[in-house]
């Protein structure tokens, strides 16, 4: 999940696209899928891709435009781990909790990250620099344990290496 997300703008703050432009693009996506079964998920994906997360007012707008109850949208948003309703930090640190990473010591890397960043998975540092996420499997099992920061995948992490990598972002 992380890889997909991090290719996209993380936040609108200071970004190139204005709020109006974002709404235009979300609307275009709605038009493209209008009338088709299963249109909701691609629309939400597009919206999240543009904004970085799904704020309530955006979900409301989608609900009105698509004539889908907000409760349904909320249900879908909270069901799939891909969607988030809170903004993320400047660097999204995604630790893979897949089996291979676990077998090769991923848990200890997670402990290191929690200690170093001072936050739990699913939250963002106070200064907004880092978000910590647990992801299911990045599919880089041959390089386990892996932690991706933004688009960069850091392979064969150890607690020591992890600290070094983090400090290079500080």
């Amino acid at each position, binding site marked *: 999940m992380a890889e*997909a997300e991090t290719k996209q703008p993380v936040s609108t703050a200071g970004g190139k696209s204005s709020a109006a432009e974002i709404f235009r693009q979300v609307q275009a996506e709605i038009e493209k899928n209008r009338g088709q079964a299963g249109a909701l*998920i691609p629309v939400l994906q597009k919206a999240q891709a543009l904004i970085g997360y799904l704020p309530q007012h955006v979900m409301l707008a989608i609900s009105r435009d698509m004539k889908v109850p907000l409760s349904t949208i909320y249900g879908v948003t909270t069901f799939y781990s891909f969607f988030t309703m809170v903004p993320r930090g400047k660097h999204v640190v995604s630790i893979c909790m897949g*089996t*291979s990473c676990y077998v090769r010591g991923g848990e200890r890397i997670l402990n290191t990250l929690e200690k170093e960043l001072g936050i739990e998975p699913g939250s963002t540092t106070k200064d907004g620099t880092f978000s910590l996420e647990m992801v*299911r*499997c990045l*599919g880089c099992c*041959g390089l*386990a344990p892996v932690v991706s920061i933004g688009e960069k995948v850091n392979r064969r992490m150890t607690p020591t290496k992890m600290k070094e990598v983090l400090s290079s972002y500080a």
Partner: protein
Amino acid sequence: MAKRLMSVEELNKFKAVAQKKLDERAKKIQVKVHLGTCGIAGGAKFVQEAFVKEVAARKLSNVIITEAACIGPCEREPVVTVIHPQKGRVIYCNLTPEQVPTIVEKHLIKSEPVTEWLLDLESPTFKLQHIRIMHNQDIDPMSIEEYIARDGYQALAKALTQMKPDDVISEVTKAGLRGRGGAGFPTGTKWSFVRRAVGDEKFVVCNGDEGDPGAYMNRAVLEGNPHSILEGMAIGAYAIGNVRRGYAYIRAEYPLAIETFNHALEQAREYGLLGKNILGTDFEFDLTVFPGAGAFVCGEETALLASIEGKRGNPRQRPPFPANKGLLDKPTTLNNVESWSNIPLIIHHGADWWGSAGSEQCKGTKTFCLVGKINNSGLIEVPLSTPLGQIIFDIGGGIPGGKKFKAIQIGGPSGGCIPIGHLNTPVDYEAVTKLGAIMGSGGLIVMDENNCMVDVAKFFLQFTRDEACGKCTPCRAGIPKMLEILSKITQGKGSMEDLAVLSELAEMVGSASLCGLGQTAPNPVLSTLRHFHAEYEAHIIDKHCPAAVCQPLFKAPCQHTCPVELDCPGYVSLIKEGKYADAYKLIRQRLPFPMSVGRVCDHPCEVKCRRAQVDESVSIRDLKRMAADYAYEHGIEFVPPMKPRRPERVAIVGAGPAGLTAAYELVREGYNVTVFESLPVAGGMMAVAIPEYRLPKKILQAEIDNILKLGVELKLNTKVNDIDSLFKEGYKAVFISCGAHKGDKMGISGEDVEGVFDAIEYLRELNLGKKPRIGKKVAVVGGGNSAIDAARDSLRQGAEEVHILYRRERRDMPAIDEEIEAAENEGIHVDCLTAPTKVLSQGGKVTGLECIRMELKGFDSSGRRTPQPVKGSEYTIAVDTVIEAIGQRPDTSFIKDGVKIAKGGTITADPRTLATDQPGVFAGGDAVTGPKTVIWAVSAGQRAATSINRYLQGKPLSPFVERDGYEPIEIPSIAPTEEEVKERARMHPTELDTKERKSSFKEVVLAFRPAEGREEASRCLRCDLEVGGEE
């Protein structure tokens, strides 16, 4: 601009042109950079850039740089294939941009491949694979032209123009293709259900929601060969009928796969291979990619279909099955990526060809993701029913760091763990299910001795708990309840009753849950309970995690793994501070033989040392020796606290490390202890088996004297003839620690002549100062520590040529690795895969040994390969001395009745309390376990002392060793600095020159000097300071 291919002729014409282009290209040097997700993560794009730059700078017009997808060896990314028109095809691995100029210079310009950077394509890793699904993955996945040039869309053309829909289905049925998503349902049968279902609109769906953590083979196909899936789906649509639309559900975590697949769809539409009137027929079909949004449960078919409909991915009750009521309530077939990818192969080459791989029940090949603790991790493709052991050890190259294989998890969170005893299992649907796992989509996760199976079960349950949709109660409520129990167990708070509840809950969740997720979620628990029950018991009864994973149970992995739980980080940090005396005292609180154990221990602690993740383990054993030797040389005394005297007398049979340790602990408790020893010396195997050059007699004696001076009575040259007489003499309890001093015979003809020695006898005589008369050419048979000791001793006794003959491979030898190495350094030949068949003699004296070569076949229950004689490979070696060292057992002739003897000749005792069947009689050490190292005997002595103490005071026996009354020693709690954790080689103590070794019995390994010791001690990561990582 592409032209629609309106007939088979046009397809073939296009193919001919494409083929010609490929042929033209083959005249040049082709550099293919493999850009799968792993490759990109590994830095392949930088390597690609470097090639482009270098080739441009050198103006090489005969080089073409192209892109290709993953070919499997993920561990060695980035990977680049170079195809040279004259030199053929090679694959570079582990490339960095810095290496590129050299490759360009040597290989692309001078036509000399840089061999040391190449993958060995002749190795079993590649030779044993059978590549079908992955075979197109060195073509450019973005090019439909390349796919068509390689027979792409020929199967679709054949189906549309030469076969009726029913023919297609019967061909797939005949081939025997079974669902590659894991359940193994016959694909042809599934299709025929959907074909028969009533409906004027039907769907085909590709399940690309590869959610099993640790499995990504579907991604490789999606990224590497999208057209094969697309073609398969088109053929399926034709065969089922009334299908005009299909969906490929691909998980959002695979952005590259989605992009590649969408690109393939666009191309196929351009060429008229999707859309209306495909290849000029009236067949119409189109396909949409639906990116999943991250939900494991969507791998379940009804949940996946709900997700495509834009809903929450909740599964629903079946029946009705999707074959009748699927997507939008229309008949739908849902097949896995790999199943679809196999369809063009079946139709193009025919069912017979396709079914030629695999076994009768399970045909074809299967891709697997071989990951975890394995040397060659990555994607592999093998015929179904390939033995598990072959996949792990031949293809996978075994376990890294010489660790021991423990289990393999098959089928992800829905599967189970298969232990070491089942390596001959053919990997197919039925055999794997029988062992409590499932095939799943094909994730194979290898675990070694450092993985805790209780924690593994917990890991998978955490996963399924997080991924459960919450719709049905058994799964929603049952899994967290199971998890709660597992968490209790991993924190040392579990009880045996919990295990019963856990199994019951597992059965309930499995049988009552609505969908596959809940039904299979208990599998990891059930399979670990079945195959690793002892490990659960260790957590519950002993509060011990054998893999040293469950943090709440211990301070540091080294300490937890040590059989006597020596405080390794404690004394190592004291040494680092230069407080050698304190270090010695800390060691002595748990170990009466620090100088001896510091020399001969097989150091299980170092196996678990986390420093090995940075570079190498800390030299814990040698540090212990250094502190102990320092105390000895400086006359530092350790006086253990003594309890008031008690009246009871305790008899100990055998003065080895187990017996002496028990005596030491019991005398401290105030008992009157007598140790009976039949030999003229005390120390057991430490005195009469371990050679002087490994453990000097003077050192051992000093440690024994420390014990005796506390008031232990030692009776040498005194053989105990029966246990009951000891009780008659007034002893209230007996500890049998007689060791295993009887050597096993080889059982071959001619072994009763002069010049054949039993290793244990030979070592004993030598250690007792006699000079057994050996010859000049010696053969030692066996691979244990006695074999190595005997070989090295014979060299020192003047033998000119010494061979160790071992029937398995060197890595299987049970001897301590350092000792084998030392033997080789001294010029001893280690001949593996050979076994003696006959001792040759003349005039009653050995003249030679007839041997036969062995080969390794299959796997035994210990996970080692079984040696089998190679017919007709007999050969003889001329030797005048043969030393047999193939096994030892205790001499239990003094045990009459009351105490049980096991089949192998060892004494039967409770592994925790060491109690035998006779009240008041305890047994431990080699006499119970068979030959093991000193530290295990010390541990047995401590357990025996605890049990005897409790027995004599009428308390229930307990397995826990309690030692109290010691003065506390302050341990520095300073974490290592950043400088100290940087990669740094392990220090090795100085060793005696090899020349000097052969002529004397002088000690070979010397102690660390203080500066060396402090330096080495500073490598310790101080795991004991880490706060326990509880959930």
